[in-house]
């Protein structure tokens, strides 16, 4: 491995495949596996409103992951400095988009805010922990990659 003496984040750019996109597709796949369970739990607590709210919440979380991954993947090909700026402003923009998405449906007849809120937290954290388990195993044992799921 080489270590660059005078690195410049402004001029350094990263070509090649984007691992964030792969991670996002993995998370999407795991989200598809987990969705029946989450929807069923919300259906038990909030009925049909819970089902729609859970689906809406899961779509929000997955779109959020893809937006974050897309931002990093696109800007890393241009410059690391730009990537840093995009991640920071993207964080604010994505929070704003989630806020807008929830504000737009808050008075809808089919929404249950409790189910929506809990789905957002549980799906986001649950899918991350699930993915982290796989990524940690890949990084710790590169020669022993876990079976593709």
């Amino acid at each position: 491995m080489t270590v660059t003496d005078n690195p410049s984040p402004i001029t350094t750019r990263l070509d090649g495949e984007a691992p964030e996109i792969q991670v996002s597709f993995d998370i999407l796949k795991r989200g598809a596996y987990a969705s029946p369970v989450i929807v069923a739990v919300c259906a038990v607590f909030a009925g049909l409103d819970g089902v729609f709210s859970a689906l809406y919440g899961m779509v929000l979380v997955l779109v959020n992951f893809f937006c974050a991954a897309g931002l990093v993947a696109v800007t890393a090909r241009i410059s690391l400095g730009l990537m840093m700026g995009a991640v920071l402003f993207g964080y604010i923009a994505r929070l704003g988009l989630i806020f807008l998405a929830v504000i737009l449906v808050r008075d809808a007849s089919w929404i249950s805010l409790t189910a929506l809120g809990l789905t957002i937290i549980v799906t986001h954290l649950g899918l991350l922990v699930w993915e982290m388990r796989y990524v940690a195993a890949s990084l710790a044992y590169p020669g022993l990659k876990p079976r593709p799921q």
Partner: protein
Amino acid sequence: MEALSALVAELTGDEEKAAAAASSAGFAYGLAAIGPGIGIGYLVGKSVEAMARQPEAAGMVRTTMFLGIAFTEALALIGFVVFILIGL
């Protein structure tokens, strides 16, 4: 300021409670977004430094950075959910 005081004086008890809940929820959301903002800035800054120094390890750093960003963002999402449950 006087107009605001007059407006507050006209509010009934329930409306006052609703207004207090809404403003508190807004504060909670704003405060909850500050910490993750600092965390993400620190995380990405260190990752960029590492990638610029050692481009060969960029793939590993980027994967870990992406997961770190998402975990940090979960804190802001928790604040947001508290906001929608209390304030909306």
